[in-house]
Structures are given as structure tokens and as C-alpha cells.
């Protein structure tokens, strides 16, 4: 998929690009609004990651221009202005999602994937995990036909690990995804550990979970083949 990264902070743009390229995206970079405006007019993008705080251009104008020109790109807004009002505004003006700086790269990837799934109506019905099967529509987990009762948080945690399978997720990344920014200050690495512990206990009662790994000193990972 083609992604245009519009971000005036060059080193941040480059890091995002490096990450997305490693995830097999094709990335273009614009450090200015003018440049982005031209690139959107000429090329077809699936995604535009747009920093609202561009020095030379109002990011919202850029979206309007693109929509008028018939572009079907999905816009994901990146901003250091994390205020609620901005969030509402951002979604009102036709952006597909919104991320406050600083964000986790894997969170960005999950958002892109989520928008893509919505856009292309890709629905993954079932995800196999060893002896377990995750049913995404009903948000349920089964083991050999028996339902494993999970709390909402436990399901979300597992689903996020599964979405980012084969990657190590740090506790903070998991926390941020599940609890969001509003409780940022209350972050406690113990939270995630407790939830994983409970999750493991529930899963292990049904079957072994070698695919749910603890990476010492770093975080957790779901490994699948």
C-alpha cells in the first residue's frame, strides 16, 4: 500500500517511513504542506499520515483539497495538539483516525490496518492460536469448542498482541493501547503483568500457550508461524 507521510520533523518522518517500509508499505515523504499538496495531486495514495502542525500549510485545507480532487486516500492525523476538541475537529473534517504525539509505531500500524480493514471490508473471522481460536466478530475465544471466558481488557490485550504477532510489545505500548492517554500518568508496568498473568491462567486451564511469550526485560509477544 502507498503511504504519504506529511511531517515537518524530518527525523520523525524518516523513522515512521523506515518502520512502515519494514512492514512492506511504499512510503513517500513530504516535509512541507506545499510539497504534500503537489504529491497528493499527482499520485494515488491509500493513506496519508498528516501532521496538523505544519508551518506552511493548514493541514485541514490539505484534506479538503484532496477530497475535492477526488482522492480516496484515508487520512490519519498526527498532532501534538492532543486536546479533545482537536480530536472531534479532526474526525469531523474527514480524517479517518487520529493519533496524538508521541505514539507507538505499532499503534500507528494497528490504526492503519484497522482503517484498511474497514475500507476494503476485510473481515477476519477466525484467528487460530495453537489450540485456541479467536472469533473476532463475536469477540470470543474458544479452545477445542469450549469458550474461554475473558474480560474485555483481557480480550483486548490478547487481540492487540495477535494483531502485532511476532513483534515484541512493551508493557507501556500495551497499556497505552488499552487505557489510552487519559490515564498516562497512572501507568504501572504491573498492570499489564497482572492481566497477562490472569490471561495465562485462564488459557492454561484449557491448553498450553507456548505462543504467548514473555520477553525478559522487554515485554510480551505472540508468535505464530
Amino acid at each position, binding site marked *: 500500500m502507498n503511504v504519504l507521510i506529511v511531517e515537518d520533523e524530518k527525523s520523525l518522518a524518516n523513522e515512521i517511513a523506515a*518502520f512502515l517500509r519494514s512492514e512492506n508499505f511504499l512510503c513517500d515523504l513530504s516535509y512541507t504542506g506545499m510539497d504534500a499538496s503537489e504529491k497528493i495531486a499527482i499520485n494515488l495514495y491509500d493513506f496519508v499520515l498528516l501532521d496538523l502542525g505544519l508551518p506552511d500549510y493548514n493541514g485541514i485545507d490539505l484534506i479538503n483539497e484532496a477530497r475535492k480532487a477526488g482522492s480516496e486516500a484515508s487520512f490519519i492525523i498526527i498532532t*501534538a495538539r492532543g*486536546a479533545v476538541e482537536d480530536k472531534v475537529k479532526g474526525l469531523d473534517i474527514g480524517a479517518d483516525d487520529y493519533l496524538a*504525539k508521541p505514539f507507538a509505531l505499532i499503534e500507528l500500524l494497528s490504526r492503519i490496518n484497522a482503517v484498511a480493514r474497514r475500507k476494503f471490508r476485510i473481515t477476519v473471522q477466525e484467528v487460530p492460536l495453537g489450540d485456541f481460536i479467536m472469533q473476532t466478530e463475536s469477540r470470543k475465544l474458544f479452545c477445542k469448542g469450549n469458550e474461554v471466558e475473558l474480560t474485555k481488557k483481557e480480550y483486548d490485550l490478547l487481540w492487540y498482541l495477535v494483531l502485532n504477532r511476532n513483534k515484541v510489545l512493551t508493557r*507501556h505500548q500495551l497499556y497505552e493501547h488499552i487505557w489510552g*492517554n487519559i490515564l*498516562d*500518568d497512572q*501507568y504501572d508496568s504491573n498492570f499489564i503483568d497482572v492481566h497477562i498473568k*490472569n490471561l495465562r491462567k485462564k488459557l492454561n486451564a484449557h491448553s498450553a500457550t507456548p505462543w504467548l511469550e514473555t520477553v525478559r526485560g522487554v515485554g510480551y509477544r505472540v508468535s505464530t508461524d
Partner: protein
Amino acid sequence: MIKLKIKLAFFNLLSKLVFTALFLIFLPYIIERINLRQVDNDLVQKREQVIDLIAGAGIDPFISADSSDVFGSFNILKEEFISLERIETDEDINHIEVAVRLIEDEEITYRVLNYSFLVDGQKYLLEVGKSLASIQYARRNITRVILIFLVLIILITLLTDLQYTHLLLRPLDRISRKLKGISRPELFDRTEVRTTTTDFHNLDNAIRELMENIDQLFRKEKEITVNISHELLTPVSVLRSKLENLLLSGNADAEMPEKIEESLKTLHRLQSLVNSLLMIARIESHQYLREDNFSVQDVLKEIIEEIRPIADDKEILMTEEYLRDFQFMQANRALIFSMIYNVVNNAVKNTPAGGAVVIRSYFHQQKFNVTISDNGRGMTREQVVNLFSRFKSRVNPGEDGTGIGLAISKTIADFHGISVSVTSEPEKGTTFFFIFPENS
């Protein structure tokens, strides 16, 4: 506390009453003096008339020269009398006195004028009397009239005084009303108070100027906080992406990921610190909407659901006691959630294994209360004082949080007009009280 207006009116009334009382004490005496003088004048006039009569007609019509008669005349009600008699004395008599006279077997007190004069070598004594009963009657009448008049005057002046001071103090009233309930300088109504009183004008100007200055300072401070936060978040963002990419690249060195994660952790602390400061600045500058109407009990249940796994893991007993629910109107649900969550989370953190945390909600004096109590390590008085300040409240260094959570809770509470208080005792535990305002 009493209003200035009332105090002034009270003083006015009091001073009037004192003067009136003094007046009333001296009034009988004054009236008597005036009356007596009036009566005396009357008597002298009557004497002159009698003397004139005698001068014209001679003494005979009254007293014949050879008889030893006494001439006396009084009116039917015995209010006045005139008597003439011969006397044998060399002294000239001319005085007025109060004396009792017996008239038709009735003793009556009169004001009596005694006057002696010579007619044909014979000395006569003229007495002209006027009953004091009539004087006293007049005095009573006058006293009553004056009393009614005084009461009326007091009432009328009291009313006009009240009205006038009210009018006079209206600018002051307006100034004090403008200041009342102003929690933030930007809420201050800056329109000038119209007045012709110089003192009020100066006062109003001084206050308005002061408010303007404070407001500007506040604004500047908030602006700086917001700007600095933005500036800080960008480099944090860059660093974070770099470190995350490094972590994902799966370096062969076994120790590398751990070190990167440690750096990320430090960076997260910086990030959450900046975000917290930013959040406080935003709440203080009212960048959050207050449009939610929700049940506080639902919020409490959600919070407990979130924290229960942690409490269970630490073997802390969490109990909830809801006496009544409260629908909080025009508030920000996410912020209220965060406000209580911070405190509950803190309580669980600061309570050792086997301890207990109790969340209660109830109404007290028409106001909705939420309390969070623990039997944890508690705090000293100093710690309680510094609890809500932004960087002093760090109880346990080395934890993941930034220690700014309670400052955030306080800011959110202030934003919603919720009052927060804490009672704590070392080694016994801590209780937080949130007292919600009544919905307007």
C-alpha cells in the same frame, strides 16, 4: 457577617433612638415649663384685666368698703378662679405659686397669682388661679402628639436612610457581587461600575486593573506550559520512534533489547510528565468540554472493574458501598473517571498486601460524596499538605508514575467545582473525600 448597608441603617436607627429617648426624658419637664410660662402669662393678663376693671368701676362692685367680705368667682368646672380680699400688711405681694385651694369642699391644685394693690388706702390681695389639671391634660396631649410625630419621623427617616444608603452603596454592591464566586480571573466581569463616588470609582478601577493583570499572567503561564509541552513532545516523539524501530529490528545482541526498553521506559516517564502538565494546563484553560450527563456510580463501577485485578493480585480487599447514585450534569466523564481512578489506584498502591480499600458514595447535607479509604501506610501532616502540589507529592521514588496524578485529580475537581479533602494517619490509612456540587 452583616452587610454594610444594614450596619449603617442600624447605626442611624440607634443614634435616633438615643436622641429620642433623651428628648422624651426631658420632654415632660420642658412642656411643663412652657405650659407654666403660658399659664403665668395668662394669669398676669387676667390680673391686668381685673385691675383695669377695678380702675374703671371701683372696688365696690366686688367688695363693698365696709363689709369684710371676700370676693370670689370661679367657672363651673372650677378651672379658674379669681378672689379679692382685704389684707392688712405693709408688704407688697406679687408672686406666682402652686397652691391648694378649697372650693366648694373640693381641694384643687391651682397655679395662683398673688397680687396686692392699694385702693383708697386699703390694701387688697388679688388671687387669680388656674387649675393645674388642665395644664396636665394639655401636657399629656402634647406629649402624645410629639410621640406620634417622633415615631413617624424615625420611621420615615429610617426608610429614606435605607433607600439612600442602598442607592449610595449600589456601586460597592456591584463590585462585591462581581468578585463573589470568581474562581478564575477570566470570569471577572470587566465592565466599569458606574458611580459618582470617587472612592468607589478608584476601588473599581484598581480591582479591574488587578484582575486584568492576574488574568494576563495566568494566560501567559498556561500558554507557556502548552507551548513548552508541544515543543517537548516532538523530540520525545522522534526518540521514541527511533528506539521502537531499534527494538523491532531484532538485534542479535541479547542485552540490547533490554537496554532499549529501559530507555523507552525513561522516555515514557518524560512523555507522561509532559502530557500530565499539558493536561493540567488544558483543564485550567478550559479546553475540555463539559457536556456529559452521567451516573457517577457507573463511573465508580468501571474504575473498580479496572483496578480489581491489580487489587486481587496484591490480595487487597476492595469493597464498594453505594447508598445513592448521583447524575452528574454538564461534566466531562473521562476527566471524572481519571480523577477518581488516580485516587483509587493510589490507594491500592499504598496499601500493603492483605489490606483493604473501601469506596463509598452517599449524600451528606444535600451533597453527593464519594470517599476512598484505605488502611495502608498513611501520611504525615506534611505529606498531606503537599499532596496536591505538582512535584512535592512523590511518596515512593522508583515507581512508574510521575507522582503528578493527585495534582491532576485536584485540577479536575476544581474544574468541576468538586471539593477534595484528605484525612490521613501514618500506619493507619488515608481517606479521600470528593464532595460534588449540586447540579445547577
